[in-house]
């Protein structure tokens, strides 16, 4: 019985946390991004679900890549070139398209990382940025759940000490 209440506390806190984040109405965002050894700038993009993102990415030194997880996008950023070469990992046989800006809709909420996909030096595997698409329900739910765990623990401890003579 106590355990059931404890689980309920955790679940409720997680649910409350997950419902808490909100997002604004979708809009169009034009973003100029640079890539260098070993970071993207801006390193964190905070957008809303449904936003249309138009990215112009340039490299400040060597060739970099831009691999955005969950969005099936892999882009080559070649220095001194006005074009980005966009390809899709799910369609590897397709030839890359040359575009001036990368356009896509942030149709999924959550935190997604974009990574360099062209070996550019020693810290290449750790060259990454973050696209945070509101509402980030996993964050809210996770934080709520952890706090719920604390409260559930307190509840169980207090019930147990109340039962102890």
């Amino acid at each position: 019985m106590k355990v059931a209440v404890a689980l309920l506390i955790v679940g409720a806190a997680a649910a409350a946390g997950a419902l808490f984040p909100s997002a604004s109405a979708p809009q169009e965002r034009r973003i100029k991004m640079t890539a260098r050894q070993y970071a993207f700038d801006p390193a964190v993009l905070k957008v809303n679900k449904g936003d249309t993102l138009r990215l112009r990415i340039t490299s400040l030194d060597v060739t970099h890549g831009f691999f955005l997880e969950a969005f099936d996008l892999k882009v080559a950023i070649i220095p001194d070139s006005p074009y980005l070469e966009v390809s899709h990992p799910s369609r590897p046989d397709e030839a890359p398209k040359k575009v001036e800006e990368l356009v896509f809709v942030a149709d999924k909420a959550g935190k997604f990382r974009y990574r360099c996909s062209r070996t550019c030096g020693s810290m290449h595997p750790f060259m990454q940025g973050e696209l945070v698409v509101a509402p980030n329900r996993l964050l809210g739910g996770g934080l709520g759940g952890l706090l719920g765990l604390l409260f559930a623990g307190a509840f169980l401890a207090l019930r147990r000490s109340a039962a102890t003579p």
Partner: protein
Amino acid sequence: MISKRDELLSGFLVLAVLAGIPWWVMRQERSANAVPDGANVHVINLTAVADGGIYTFEDMVGHNYWRRRPVVARPVVRVGEKVLFRLRSADVTHGFSIPELQVGPIYIEPGSVTEVRFEPSEPGQYLIQCTFRCGGCHEEMFAILEVLGPHGEPFPEDMRLKLPPRVKCPLRDC
């Protein structure tokens, strides 16, 4: 309780590992570098290095890559030879092109060997250049391919190439 047989057998296995693995590595290297019709082909191994913008004959590996800049290669071939360039990169993607001989431009990816074949027909000095932005020294990443006559005769003086002096990425003395 020592069983001499067990100890000899296990000791032998250890020595087999210590000797066997380098032997296996060298065997794999030999077979990976083997060239079909190898006797008739002039194989030139070049490694591209971003730090310094250098094409070198030196094998750039763990123990020497970070120590110093390698010596720039000056490959020498003859008219009529079948030339095979086996190209490696020690760090990032490089390009390779000998525009006057219509060789390349091709990419040299790190961790694999890129091959390009051609047969030179005119003696002279030809420019090898990197065609893929590889770092701060990319604009100065050149080498000279020397083509001698079919029997090793020197090339005509008007085919001599003068490379622009290196400013950003000076080379060490040979």
